[in-house]
């Protein structure tokens, strides 16, 4: 009796669940960081599932749209820093909308993504072209160090950006339960007054 119940009832449901490509979530998360002149964004739902094909809009500080696009299969959307944003040092507001009622945004300030990007473009001197000995001046050295540092720091930047959006912790959960107990106490107190009177 029990096994037939399992086969007839629970198994089909589990199969439906396994084939169902969608699921629900509470919240969509987005985080963004700059890497080598490109702004990388990653989106995922609160359960950790990546948000595929979610609409991304990049606005400047005054909510004027600079560019838009959609995330790929890994929930990633990359774009080169728009020229207008570079020139005017706009703070970027990157908004993600998954279309099912979930929306979130990430604020990337100009200071964060333009750090060290104000060096003039490299100029080849006649001395450099003709001489067999490579002479590296201070500016070139800065550039080399900067590009190496950027490569090394990219994973750190990503992880820092990811951690800024914190997940529910055990303290949050216990705190919430504490509030519920407190509210129950208050309600019980007032309702008991009604009984007594």
């Amino acid at each position: 009796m029990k096994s037939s119940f399992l086969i007839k009832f629970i198994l089909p449901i589990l199969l439906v669940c396994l084939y169902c490509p969608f699921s629900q979530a509470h919240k969509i998360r987005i985080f963004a960081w700059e890497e080598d002149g490109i702004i990388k964004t990653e989106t995922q739902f609160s359960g950790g599932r990546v948000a595929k094909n979610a609409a991304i809009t990049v606005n400047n500080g005054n909510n004027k749209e600079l560019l838009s696009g959609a995330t790929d299969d890994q929930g990633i959307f990359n774009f080169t820093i728009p020229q207008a944003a570079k020139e005017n040092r706009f703070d970027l507001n990157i908004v993600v909308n998954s279309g099912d009622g979930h929306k979130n945004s990430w604020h990337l300030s100009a200071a964060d993504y333009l750090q060290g990007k104000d060096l003039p473009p490299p100029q080849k001197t006649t001395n450099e072209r003709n001489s067999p000995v490579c002479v590296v001046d201070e500016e070139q050295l800065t550039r080399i160090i900067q590009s190496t540092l950027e490569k090394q720091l990219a994973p750190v930047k990503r992880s820092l950006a990811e951690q800024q959006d914190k997940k529910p912790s055990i303290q949050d959960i216990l705190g919430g339960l504490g509030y519920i107990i407190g509210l129950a106490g208050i309600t019980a107190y007032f309702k008991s007054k009604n009984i007594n009177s």
Partner: protein
Amino acid sequence: MHISEGVLSPSLLAAGGVLTFVGTAIGLKKLDYDRVMNASLLTATFFVASLIHVPLGPGSIHLIMGGLMGILLGWISFPVILVALFLQMVFFQYGGLIVLGVNTTIMALPAVICFYLFRPWFMQEGKKRQIAAFSCGFFSVLLSSLLMALALFSTDRGFFQASLLIIAAQIPLMFIEGIITMFTVTFLAKVQPEFLQIREL
């Protein structure tokens, strides 16, 4: 099931707010001393249940427990869900203050509807009670997803596709909630029948 801030139109937000206000007022009026503990236990269940994600296939699902709340509490589901959603907003940043009314209505209104539809069956012993419990779990999720789809669709016609996807996405959950509500009610009827308040109502 938590709609974010800035998605819905102001008129819809206002409508949700009014419905939640009325529902909560009726719920608080109906909440008597004997049911305060039941209500707070279910608030805690609702508050925590949505944190437990069960990985299933490529995604994950979580329980809502709207059906169980509906059949046990009726109109009291409104204040219970309002408090739980408010705490989830404060602690976990789910949803938002402005959409709190709409989110509460989306989850509490189906619970109340289920109460009126299935409570008579629920009062009877045996199979009928199990069927009523399963239906409550099933229909509360179905009605919630319909309300959510309707809310998104009425704000922006472009959400039509997404609205259909939302309903499709909830299908597995409808069955799971139904089964879990059924087992919970059967278990409670055996060990703690007073929790179900079958005699008083």
